[in-house]
């Protein structure tokens, strides 16, 4: 292929030169070029290496179906593999390199694999699972794990950077009355028709220029018409999105679009995203997605210099590149005739080879005028040349087979094997395309959700008819009865041909060049029993590369049909799935990366905690203080100090993340009485009560305290983890089971800032912060009492005397905006009392010492009895779960029950998650498990909490083994009461 840039013609701007780098070498291009057109104009032929055989590949098309010029764009952290050079708009400074080759695509050591091609046939990869003969006959795949790495390294689709993507990506939503995909003659007319009827229209075009096939024409009238339509669209207010691909079509008019915002810019604006991932919801959709020209399968049809005829027309008329000097155009339909004539007019020596005995009818006369030699009844049998095409051996059809004809020298071999309407998006919606034998292509079937096809996407081949089709499609989409043009448009019918070859030929003819699937592979798959088209696809990987079979699917189906002795429609077709073209993972993620991967929840005292030395940890979506280390302290030293300080003096812990639900209404107490296992109907105003709620099946759902604030107002607290779940559950109960109850539940988790103030000096500390210090005297605020009062500075607060740590403790709540001020006050009071701030780690230590349960113990398998809280299950009233908790399985005496755990040797430690086993039986599931462990400052040694069959009663005086099969280590432990510290609760009642 001796491509040259023409001195005139095309749509490029020759006054604006752009620099690019290909494989480290500098080249020039122009504004309006693609990477492929610029490299072609510079004479670069080999742009890629094939997937398996490392065969040299050049430009094969001018669009999304490209299977040869697949390159890696950019370098370093921004290297993006598998970019189609035909779709990459050129910009100044663009850098690209070849992939799947070493040292480069021009001279690739891997091409030696081509010599062993017969070992890499269909299903080769799957066959390697069977083991490497003869070493592994019948023994499985012992060494497969080793050579799998080699296979993966040798076969390739480029390599992405392993570094984090530095670019930003946006998600976006849009809505419109009509979405038009494709801006060719049909799409432009469809969009304009809808807009002129007052509809809000979005027009999407994957190219950087509007016009579709208008762009490939030399007729000035075509360009005038294009501009006229675009001007009218702009005047009508159509939202036009270029460089945007509709990659998927979904239910109810929803489309997925990928907008390449800055991929074409040399200087990327600092704050602009690289791409936007759009979700568009449209009332109606017109798909004017065009058609793709098919290749034909023949020997070495992948040589650089073999491309589709339409592609050559694009390079000539749009990019001003004459892609060859001595060109053979092979076709089985009328469409290639114009291309042949235009190439000849541009100065090439052109021979048109038409398979049809009668040729193109009247078109043949036009060829004579353009000095194009026409040969009929012939087809390409083999592309000659190794690194680039230098001729084509022709074949003549003889009955059902082929006979060798003469060889024509050429530096460019163009192929037109017919056209395939782009029905991919329609296929996403489940509409099965129908085979049209006359046009030798799949045509779109009717689709739900008001999706209408237009133009060549519906098999209409002529420009005027495409424009009329666009108008008709828009009207149909808007519910107006209208007849559009019928499919077709060629003077002489197409003569279908999918493969040209001799029966005993041993050469490779590619069906799916991107995955190196040959016609032999298709036949081999059939021989090996893969006769379903879906099995064929997976066994050969036909259509599974980044082009999703755009180039080879129909040929593959035709070959399979031939092998099965069936017609193509009887073989069926695979369903196209999104995305139509690849979508970067970054675009899927959008801005939901890094700190925004999950939305972070901050307590009202978040910043205050950080200022006071908190190290934070994740608790679900929340960031909570983990510990407050002093200078030089480890986490262990910090939490032990904090827990000890709480036992000795006073500690303050941010508990704002607890779920908080306002339960309001005249029936609120009755509602709570039904929800909780214990009695709530008579909870006095100004009192709190600990409650357990069960699921319907009798398993514990959550626990927490509920405070009665008035006759009809309660504040229900939940665990941090279950706040949302409990809220949903309560709403469900009210809306579906007890709609007669006058109760409203509202989340007030974000309304309140809450702290736990615990320790023997807690009362003193809080009192110093109150306008009325007497408010929390023991007689005014007894255990489980609740009071409304004020902090100094006039800050209203709620105080409940409740304890999770087992100490004298209070929870103090203020409106969230006053959380920091509350901390200032409390800390100023607690610090002189030798108090501390404490975090989750110390909180955990304190509650384990007391045997208080959390989510680790209430894990969805535990009954209220298992957790040692059976006395809280009322026998005097029904409640959610009260019936099914009586199931025999849940009442078995040997069920695992909550226990405390001490190491026999008090100097030893054991792990959370360890299994509890009988001595000598440390296999299987054991007798129980450890849910949490800590060093106990109060007891001076390691302790744990967990479950064991039969509970403390069955294991008193016996030794168990805490075994950790993952982290290893067996420790002898003794099972004790879960209430390991102050079992009588004297401290918290003090």
């Amino acid at each position, binding site marked *: 292929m001796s491509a040259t840039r023409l001195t005139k013609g095309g749509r490029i701007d020759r006054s604006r030169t752009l620099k690019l780098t290909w494989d480290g070498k500098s080249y020039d291009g122009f504004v309006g070029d693609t990477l492929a057109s610029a490299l072609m104009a510079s004479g670069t032929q080999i742009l890629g290496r094939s997937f398996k055989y490392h065969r040299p590949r050049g430009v094969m098309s001018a669009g999304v179906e490209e299977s040869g010029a697949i390159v890696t764009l950019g370098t370093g952290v921004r290297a993006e593999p598998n970019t189609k050079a035909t779709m990459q708009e050129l910009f100044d400074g663009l850098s690209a390199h070849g992939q799947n080759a070493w040292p480069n695509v021009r001279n690739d050591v891997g091409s030696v694999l081509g010599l062993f091609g017969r070992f890499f046939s269909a299903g080769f990869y799957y066959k390697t699972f069977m083991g490497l003969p003869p070493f592994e006959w019948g023994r499985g795949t012992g060494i497969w794990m080793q050579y799998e790495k080699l296979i993966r390294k040798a076969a390739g689709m480029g390599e992405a950077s392993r570094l984090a993507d530095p670019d*930003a990506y*946006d*998600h*976006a*939503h*849009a*809505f419109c009355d009509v979405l038009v995909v494709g801006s060719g003659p049909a799409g432009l007319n469809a969009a304009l028709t809808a807009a002129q009827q007052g509809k*809000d229209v979005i027009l999407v075009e994957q190219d950087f220029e509007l016009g579709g096939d208008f762009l490939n024409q030399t007729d000035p009238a075509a360009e005038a018409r294009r501009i006229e339509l675009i001007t009218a669209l702009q005047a009508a207010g159509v939202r036009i999105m270029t460089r945007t691909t509709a990659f998927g079509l979904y239910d109810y008019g929803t489309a997925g679009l990928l907008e390449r915002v800055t991929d074409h810019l040399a200087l990327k*604006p*600092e*704050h*602009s*995203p690289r791409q936007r991932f759009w*979700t568009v*919801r449209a009332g109606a959709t017109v798909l004017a997605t065009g058609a793709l020209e098919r290749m034909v399968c023949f020997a070495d049809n992948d040589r650089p210099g073999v491309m589709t005829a339409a592609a050559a027309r694009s390079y000539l008329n749009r990019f001003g590149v004459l892609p060859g000097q001595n060109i053979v155009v092979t076709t089985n339909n009328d469409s290639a005739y114009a291309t042949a004539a235009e190439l000849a007019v541009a100065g090439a020596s052109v021979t048109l080879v038409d398979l049809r005995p009668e040729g193109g009818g009247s078109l043949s006369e036009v060829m004579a005028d353009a000095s194009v030699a026409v040969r009929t009844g012939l087809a390409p049998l083999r592309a000659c040349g190794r690194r680039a095409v230098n001729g084509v051996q022709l074949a003549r059809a003889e009955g059902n087979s082929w006979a060798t004809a003469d060889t024509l020298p050429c530096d460019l071999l163009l192929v037109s094997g017919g056209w395939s309407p782009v029905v991919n998006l329609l296929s996403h919606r489940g509409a099965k395309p129908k085979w049209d034998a006359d046009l030798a292509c799949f045509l779109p079937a009717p689709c739900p959700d008001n999706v209408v096809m237009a133009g060549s996407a519906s098999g209409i081949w002529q420009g005027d008819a495409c424009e009329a089709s666009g108008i008709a499609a828009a009207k149909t989409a808007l519910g107006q009865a209208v007849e559009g043009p019928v499919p077709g448009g060629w003077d002489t019918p197409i003569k279908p041909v999918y493969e040209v070859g001799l029966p005993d030929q041993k050469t490779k003819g590619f069906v799916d060049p991107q995955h190196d699937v040959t016609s032999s592979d298709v036949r081999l798959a059939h021989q090996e029993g893969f006769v379903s088209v879906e099995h064929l696809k997976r066994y050969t990987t036909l259509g599974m590369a980044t082009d999703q079979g755009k180039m080879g699917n129909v040929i593959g189906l035709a070959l399979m049909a031939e092998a099965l002795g069936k017609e193509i429609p009887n073989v069926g077709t695979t369903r196209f799935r999104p995305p139509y073209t690849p979508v970067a993972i970054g675009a899927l993620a959008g*801005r*939901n990366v890094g*700190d*925004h991967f999950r*939305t*972070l*929840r*901050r*307590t*009202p005292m*978040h*910043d205050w905690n950080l200022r006071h030395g908190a190290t934070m940890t994740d608790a679900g979506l*929340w960031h909570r203080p983990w510990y407050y280390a002093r200078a030089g302290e480890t986490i262990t030293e910090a939490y032990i100090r904090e827990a000890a300080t709480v036992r000795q003096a006073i500690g303050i812990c941010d508990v704002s*993340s607890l779920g908080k639900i*306002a339960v*309001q*209404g*005249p029936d609120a107490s009755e509602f709570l009485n039904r929800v909780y296992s214990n009695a709530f109907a008579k909870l006095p105003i100004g009192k709190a009560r600990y409650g357990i709620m069960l699921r319907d099946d009798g398993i514990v759902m959550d626990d927490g305290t509920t405070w009665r604030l008035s*006759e*009809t*107002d309660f504040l229900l607290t939940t665990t941090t983890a279950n706040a949302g779940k409990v809220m949903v559950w309560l709403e469900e109960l009210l809306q579906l089971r007890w*709609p007669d109850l*006058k109760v*409203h539940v*509202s*989340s*007030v*988790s*974000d*309304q*309140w800032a809450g702290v736990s103030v615990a320790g023997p000096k807690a009362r003193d500390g809080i009192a110093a912060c109150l306008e009325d210090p007497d408010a929390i005297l023991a007689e005014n605020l007894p255990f489980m009492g609740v009071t409304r009062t004020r902090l100094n*500075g*006039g*800050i209203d607060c709620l105080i409940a005397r409740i304890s999770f740590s087992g100490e004298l403790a209070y929870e103090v709540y203020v*409106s*969230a*905006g*006053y*959380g*920091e*001020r509350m901390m200032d006050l409390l800390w100023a009071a607690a610090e002189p009392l030798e108090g501390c701030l404490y975090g989750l780690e110390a909180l955990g230590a304190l509650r384990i010492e007391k045997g208080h349960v959390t989510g680790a113990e209430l894990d969805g398998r535990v009954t209220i009895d298992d957790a040692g809280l059976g006395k809280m299950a009322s026998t005097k009233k029904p409640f959610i779960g009260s019936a099914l908790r009586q199931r025999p399985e849940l009442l078995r005496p040997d069920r695992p029950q909550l226990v405390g755990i001490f190491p026999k040797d008090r100097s030893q430690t054991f792990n959370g998650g360890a299994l509890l086993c009988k001595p000598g039986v440390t296999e299987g599931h054991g007798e129980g498990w450890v849910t949490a462990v800590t060093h106990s400052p109060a007891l001076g040694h390691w302790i744990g909490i967990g479950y064991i069959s039969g509970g403390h009663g069955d294991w008193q005086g016996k030794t168990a083994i805490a075994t950790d099969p993952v982290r290893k280590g067996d420790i002898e432990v003794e099972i004790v009461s879960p209430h390991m510290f102050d079992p009588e609760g004297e401290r918290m009642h003090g």
Partner: protein
Amino acid sequence: MANSVSPLHTSYVAGHHGPEGKIGVTLEEIEDFAMVQFSAWPNTLARTGTEAARIAGCATAASPGEAVLGKIGTLLRVEPLKWWLVAPAGSLSETPVLAPEDGAILDLLQSRVWIRVGGPKAEVLLNHFLPIDLRAAAFPSGTVASTGFHHVGVTLWRDQTGLNLLLPRSFAVSLWDLLCESALQYGLEVIQPER
């Protein structure tokens, strides 16, 4: 009395951000406001709605999806049986009261952060996150919606001044950061809040 602290106080940087000379989006936190929830029972919907409208200074209570601007504040119909009254600070002389048999009142002021979103790219910015149709015909002034912003439930309404967001307080910094990061491409003006 001590001042309430906004959760955005360390993230809120007033002034211009992004490309020079370009203001596509304005963001402003409305700090001083009152917010009260009115909940009705199914058989007291009309009565409670009338009372909510009276307190808000509206002629009628807002219907589902409607935001009605009254003399005292804006009444948002956020659920079939619930309204939120969002009003300037000090406009409610005292916390409203409802008889329990008529409904329930709940102070929600501190649970939400109010962000006013303006500028020619306001809808575009919000549609980076909110999957609802914000075209003028579909979401005119006087419309309210409960919607999702990065999996977080938020409330959005449009009034004469523009678009307004109520963000759950604990998520506010995270969502604010997302808004600001995404708005930079259009040019962002963060307006100094009135205090």
